[in-house]
């Protein structure tokens, strides 16, 4: 057991910080006197004290974190934090089942946005703020935040960082010191969020609505404080602002950071993912608009464009806010949205899925195999921009993609074996694994995850964490080899 002390010690620290972060909605609650104050002070107190106890008990075993500790800590953090994140919800909403609260907190922290709650419009502001604030914290990553503000995690920091940041190129860092990199990413993230909140406010939302949705958009989460999601406002400007910032949040934050640091747009031109990202987005919007105009789903071409543009961006970047019920669309269009969500978001963004970079590497690998069968002597490294992709990363990407498929198939089978209708099961798994949120049919935008059984909710919560940690970081901890030291 002592072997886990260093990781547990860091975990205690993370829990304490999480407790302090909970102080933000507590403050809001006190200030607004919205009736949730009692729920919060208990939750904040419990979280902080438990973190403190854990930290104090394991202080003796403190040392720099190793690779092993890194995986354990990241997995443990993502399983344990939702427990604390669920506390305010449990305390405020009477009769809320523990499973539902945990599901909601996982969905929040993993920036998925699948909700089991209804009557959101009547919840106090601070509760809704907490839900999307969790998106915001989890979007960029709790551990990245801790690395940024607490350099005392020491040498293990880079290990942790690599385990949490969603990108296949784990070794590319922006600055020589990992703490600087983490700080840079969080500052960029903060700036984008502030800009988003101000824009939403300008577009016509009131201050709290703007802030709540800005957290949701920047983290590409998908919670809203309205049952009808963003459709509640029926405001074109709000939708345009959302599209803009969702597109920005779906880009690599490292690129944003470089552009800000150098005050130039060149880093965007050099990012190899960007042409494909925008290419696929624009193609999808154009194609689906024409397709839906043909089927005459919406009243007129402009309404079609508005609906398609919003949902394509929202679902494919894994945001998950909706303005209408897209399950009225023909099945092809719905599946297209779901399919897009699995690879559009760029590496290093707050989005989910296999990431654009991996999709590009896979596509180029396929091209290479074809050229190789035509020209047996051809030498053709897989390249991103001008950079060759090392074989080790190529293999990692192939392995990852395989595990991604396996996860989707096996979890879908598990859900349908336990009584869920196939499309619902499939789309729930895909939407959870990609951290998108809304799926199709039973879990579509018109309904939510409330109706699922307790077992299904646990499976999907697990799927969300699996997706957020890009499968391997989480699965490694579940292998026997990990525990056999």
């Amino acid at each position, binding site marked *: 057991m002592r072997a886990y002390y260093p990781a547990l010690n860091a975990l205690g620290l993370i829990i304490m910080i999480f407790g302090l972060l909970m102080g933000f909605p507590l403050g809001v609650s006190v200030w607004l006197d919205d009736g949730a104050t009692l729920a919060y002070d208990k939750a904040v107190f419990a979280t902080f004290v438990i973190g403190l106890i854990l930290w104090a008990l394991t202080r003796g075993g403190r040392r720099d974190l190793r690779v092993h500790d890194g995986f354990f800590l990241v997995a443990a953090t993502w399983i344990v934090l939702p427990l604390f994140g669920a506390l305010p919800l449990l305390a405020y909403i009477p009769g809320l089942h523990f499973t539902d609260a945990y599901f909601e907190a996982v969905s929040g922290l993993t920036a998925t946005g699948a909700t089991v709650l209804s009557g959101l419009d009547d919840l106090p502001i601070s509760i809704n703020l907490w839900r999307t604030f969790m998106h915001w914290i989890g979007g960029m990553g709790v551990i990245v935040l801790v690395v940024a503000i607490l350099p005392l995690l020491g040498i293990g920091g880079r290990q942790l960082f690599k385990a949490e940041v969603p990108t296949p190129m784990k070794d590319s860092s922006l600055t020589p010191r990992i703490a600087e990199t983490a700080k840079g990413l969080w500052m960029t993230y903060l700036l984008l969020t502030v800009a988003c909140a101000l824009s939403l406010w300008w577009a016509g939302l009131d201050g709290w609505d703007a802030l709540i949705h800005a957290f949701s958009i920047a983290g590409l989460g998908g919670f809203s404080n309205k049952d009808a999601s963003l459709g509640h406002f029926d405001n074109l400007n709000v939708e345009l602002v959302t599209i803009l910032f969702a597109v920005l949040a779906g880009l690599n934050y490292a690129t944003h950071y470089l552009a800000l640091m150098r005050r130039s747009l060149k880093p965007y031109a050099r990012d190899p993912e960007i042409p494909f990202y925008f290419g696929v987005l624009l193609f999808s919007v154009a194609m689906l608009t024409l397709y839906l105009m043909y089927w005459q789903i919406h009243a007129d071409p402009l309404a079609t464009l508005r609906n398609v543009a919003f949902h394509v961006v929202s679902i494919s970047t894994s945001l998950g806010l909706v303005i209408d019920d897209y399950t009225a669309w023909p099945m092809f269009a719905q599946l297209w949205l779901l399919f897009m969500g699995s690879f559009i978001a760029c590496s290093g963004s707050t989005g989910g899925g296999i990431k654009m970079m991996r999709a590009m590497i896979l596509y180029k690998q396929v091209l290479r195999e074809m050229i190789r069968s035509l020209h047996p*002597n*051809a030498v053709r*490294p897989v390249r991103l921009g*001008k950079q060759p992709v090392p074989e080790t990363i190529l293999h990692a990407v192939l392995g990852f993609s395989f595990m991604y498929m396996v996860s989707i198939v096996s979890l879908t089978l598990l859900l349908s074996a336990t009584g869920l209708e196939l499309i619902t099961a499939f789309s729930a798994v895909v939407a959870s694994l990609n951290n998108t949120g809304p799926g199709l049919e039973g879990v579509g935008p018109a309904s939510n995850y409330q109706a699922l059984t307790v077992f299904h909710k646990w499976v999907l919560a697990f799927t969300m964490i699996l997706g957020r940690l890009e499968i391997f970081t989480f699965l490694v901890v579940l292998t026997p080899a990990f525990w056999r030291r």
Partner: protein
Amino acid sequence: MKIIILGAGQVGASVAENLVSEANDITLVDTSPEHLAVLRDRLEIRTVCGNAASPKVLRDAGAEDADLLIAVTQSDQTNLCACRIAKALFNLPTRIARLRSTDYVDYPELLDESNFAVDFSICPEQVVTDYIKRLIAFPEALQVLEFADGVVSLICVRAFEGGPLVGHPLKALKFHLPNVEVRIAAIYRNGVPIIPEGDSIIAPGDEVFCLAATVHVRQVMRELRRSDKPMRRIMIAGGGNIGFRLAQSIEENYHVKILEMKQERAELLATQLSRALVLRGDSTDEKLLETEGIDETDLFVALTNDEEDNIMSASLAKRMGARRTLALINRRSYVDLVQGGPIDIAISPAHTSIGTLLAHVRRGDVVAVHSLRRGAAEALELIAHGSRKDSKVVGRPIEEIMLPKGASIGAIVRDETREDGRVVRREVIMPHHDTVIEENDHVIVFCTHKHLVRKVEKLFQVGFHFL
């Protein structure tokens, strides 16, 4: 003139060879005693063994009273460093450096007096690459040379049965191409020069050198042979410096395949090239050539470091159906053996690239020197300076200029300047016996023999005896 040449590689050796015959004192510096010994036995030069970037070695080589430093070692860094030292310690007046990496060339301010102090930089690989590119653009030509920044071209074409002008006297050219100014500079029949007259007849198999404005080159070529299909599929053997540069500059416009032996180099090429197909393998491997469709290849370019390999692979490619073959060959004896046979064009990298370098070395206002027919003949571009009083050229009609026998003025490029000095238009003049040369004209002179070059240069110098 006292000249120091750093580096006794291919370029250094052929520069030495070319300059030694022109009564220069040459000192060659290299780190390899063997290289130096071979050259010392063959040429009348002094050699110094040592690191070219060391002040002591440069002093030993006589940098203190040398007129010219030519730094052509393999390493860019050594060349730059040597130029800087020559300027700082010895105040050597003219410094020429070979720079391969485009990295340096992109920052011209690095080369000025206060930094590396390089007066001229040359990249032999780039010169050869450009030369091959022109041959690809004009697939019918044996040689394409440009003068006056590309305004005028000199092309060498082998006349073929069926060309509209073949079998006709030269004066018929006027009727064939009424609007095109063209000058037949020389005709070589079986390797012997014929001074072209109005009634000389072009026979099939003749190598014809024509000067024309670059925009008219295609029309002129059509008169001498049926035009070929344009090139589309190009196979390059050898991914060295030249092969890589060539592939990089033509991959957008042609289907390029490039063969490279070494796995590591092949991988590097593949990461740098975006459209060309990189193949790892031996260019003399019949099976490989066959699977890669050599019979449908329009041009096979053999550019490896091994000239025997180049000859063999190009011959093999020709035999297996490549439409045209081109090989990099240094030895003149080999060139005579294979050119016109299995290999359509032999390129000597030393001869091709040396012209640019020699232009800087030679006195007077020589802009370019190109060797033709593997160095047997030369074409020069000179700027006429002075006035009728102090020049033997300016202000005189062509017939009054005392050109040595075997040299002829091929074309004149005259800048039309506005009042503020900006060049408005460059006019190409095909001179007649009464054309008067003006100051600042670029005059292109064709010499049937190399030793005429010095006489022509003298003629263009502004002389004191006219005062």
